């Protein structure tokens, strides 16, 4: 198990380095530059390029960047917040985005599991259809539509939650964005849980367990759900990425000072360092989640762990 984890961690690090390189090349290919505002003359642009080292060959730039990054220095912002170190820019914003994302995943997974379980256990009843309808809506309606709908009803009409994110009241402010973001996760998890549970419940080992006279409770939670969880965890990782992309829009709607809105602004204004740093963080998060998921497989299903170790 240790060897397996170590191998996965090392692969992750190399993947991240490769990502930085790709991001760097992509930035070079991006049309325009951070400094081609119409108010700038050619001379001034040259001065700015020299100041930030953008006049160097890309290989040199990349070298500098990686060396600085290893020291924890992601450079400074060129234009969305001039000369501010990226680390300072992200410091307060990242926790906000992660909090909202975490609430959304937790809420989505929990509600999704419950809905899926109900649907599977009460298969072909009214409850099953109800859960299916909810999940179809959740999958097909984009998160920003939910965000706008929530904002309009709970924020504007009923004034239950603040429409604009207020850092003094972070908990209340996070409710609507988290719920909006969680819908897709919830729906997807519900659908997967339902189909997995139905499959597992119909399997022979369940029949065997039932014939041993196990209680209903033990049957469902100890045997059925645990086996059904594996494919569900597999979909959870890509869902987290959907959350990140969803947060780009949802953060805008609720005026959340998170990293999603920062990334959008940075891309629009060619603020290279911010884009690279944030994309890097998103990638790192994703890779980290994949790693956790891989390790979780082993915990939930010993067969996977053994299988990999014997290789």
């Amino acid at each position, binding site marked *: 198990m240790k060897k397996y984890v170590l191998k996965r961690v090392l692969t992750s690090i190399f993947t991240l380095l490769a990502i930085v390189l790709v991001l760097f090349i992509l930035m070079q290919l991006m*049309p*325009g*530059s*951070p*400094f*081609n*505002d*119409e*108010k*700038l*003359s*050619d*001379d*001034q642009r040259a*001065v*700015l390029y020299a*100041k930030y080292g953008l006049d160097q060959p890309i290989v040199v730039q990349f070298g500098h960047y990686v060396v600085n990054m290893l020291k924890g220095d992601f450079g400074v*912002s060129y*234009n*969305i*917040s*001039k*000369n*501010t170190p990226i680390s*300072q*820019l992200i410091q*307060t914003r990242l926790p906000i985005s992660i909090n909202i994302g975490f609430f959304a995943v937790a809420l989505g997974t929990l509600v999704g599991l419950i809905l899926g379980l109900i649907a599977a256990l009460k298969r072909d009843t009214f409850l099953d*259809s*109800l859960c299916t*309808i*909810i999940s179809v*809506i959740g999958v097909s309606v984009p998160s920003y539509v939910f965000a*706008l709908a929530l*904002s309009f*009803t*709970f*924020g*504007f009409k009923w*004034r*239950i*939650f*603040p*429409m*604009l*994110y*207020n*850092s003094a*009241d972070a*908990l*209340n402010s996070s*409710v609507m964005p988290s*719920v909006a973001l969680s819908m897709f996760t919830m729906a997807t998890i519900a659908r997967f849980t339902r189909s997995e549970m139905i499959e597992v419940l119909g399997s022979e080992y369940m029949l065997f367990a039932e014939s041993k006279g196990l209680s209903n409770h033990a049957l469902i939670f100890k045997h059925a759900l645990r086996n059904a969880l594996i494919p569900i965890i597999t979909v959870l990782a890509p869902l987290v990425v959907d959350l990140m992309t969803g947060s780009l829009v949802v953060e*805008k709607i*609720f*005026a*959340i*000072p998170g990293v999603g*809105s920062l990334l959008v602004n940075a891309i*629009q204004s*060619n603020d290279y360092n911010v884009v690279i740093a944030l994309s890097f963080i998103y990638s790192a998060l994703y890779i980290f989640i994949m790693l956790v998921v891989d390790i979780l497989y082993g915990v939930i299903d010993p067969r996977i762990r053994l299988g990999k170790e014997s290789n």
Partner: protein
Amino acid sequence: MKKKLLALVLAATMAVGMAGCGAGSDTGAAAENDAPQATGEATSDLNVMIETAVESLDPQQATDGTSFEVIADYTDGLMQMDAEGNPVNALAESYEVSEDGCTYTFKIRDDANWSNGDPVTANDFVFAWQRAVDPAVASEYAYMLSDIGQVANAAEIIAGEKDKSELGVVAVDEKTLEVTLNVPVSYFLSLMYFPTFYPVNEAFFNECGDTFATSPETVLSNGAFVLDSYEPAATAFHLTKNEDYYDAARVSLTGLSYQVIQDSQTALMSYQTGDLDITLVNGDQVDQVEDDPEFDSIGAGYLWYVTPNIKAVKELANLNIRTALTLAINREAITTDVLKDGSLPTYTAIPRDFAADFAADQEQFSDFCRDDATAAAEYWQAGLDELGITELSLELVADEDDAPAKVATVLKDQWETALPGLTINITTEPKKQRVQDLQDGNYELGLTRWGPDYDDPMTYLGMWYTDNSNNYGFWSNSEYDAIIDECTTGELCTKIDERRTRLYDAEQLVMEDAVIFPIYTAANAQMVSSSVSGIEFHPVALNRVYKNTTKN
């Protein structure tokens, strides 16, 4: 079957609704507790919506309107804008101009202090202005001191040929500042309210080092408000009235509360619930609010125009073709049916309501620029005959943002309808790329805009000077260049009336040669609460000033 399905859907909606109520009720109490506090604040703080975050609070690094507005909330320059945009004394108690118009001597008020207690001195200006031209600082607005302000030696310092200590600004004594210009600049006083010229306390700046102007602790105020909560790129921040401000008696707001909102729907809803006192509305929302007495439209100074690439596209080098294109535009339709935000159709190379209403007479170039599809068709035919072609296909490049993309579509439609044989292909690009393409001359027709940097027609007319980097069409006319020279560095600099007349001559050259097709002067559609009065709006430098604002 259908009924059953309907029942299911209804039940589902109810369930979702109930789940929502359940979640809401735990936290509803907390929200109610906050409410009185929020309204308590609202009686005196002005709640302002901004579309983009502050890019920089460093007066010599900032370049965008939002940053300028916030910097000016807590910093005064030598001059400030009155309600009409004229320069009036601020930190300067008095000033003298030498007979040749090249030396300005400012006396700084004795009661002007920084928020750390230091007095505002002449050296604060010397230090700040030297920073503005220092190549190591690489300020984007350095040209405000060189090309535009004509401060002695500024251009040489920016080019790295002289040391910044040689800049033509000296502290004669603690409260006397002497500025030397290369040539007289008629609008020089109006530059003094432009944030690039604002003072910076040298000792404080050195204490802060790299962190200068990144937090309330690293900025000093000498103005009407004090920054008390802020972090870089903050989406919400706050300023409180500066009780030590020399003009504090005039300031009635207790503070300013800024909120960045990028989503226009959220912004309008927040305004309607009373969380905001002033907000922008976009063109699509105008229909919804235009009958509201709180709805207003404020000139934004930007001139939107189409630039034809005269040098690279041989068909566009033909004057008849260009004239046909500008005549075929129906500007009224664009502003009233498409933009709807109060933008004004414009038939001059200078935007409307700008520079002492330089473009007041919109008819003066009507021989070359008006909404006249019939005349356009005649010019068009003549142009096609001269070129010996019957069909022409042109590419129009525009920003992919909402308004420019819409305008481009309408232009295509108007042109193709009025001018037989013409096909327009629209390319929309991110603004950064569009600017690059225009600067590189890699375009045929470009929809672009220009915002004024200072209160003088030259901020526009300077663009069509030969080889100016914003002369996208590479038009060149020696007579035009001569007039511009005469009015910037030549003998007309001090003769205000004659200069104005000559500038009209220059504008006429641009218009009769159809170097640009002006379309409209942009406006911001906005809502301002009826309890608020006295916000001063300006098209140049400081877009909104709150010193005289009251809120009941």
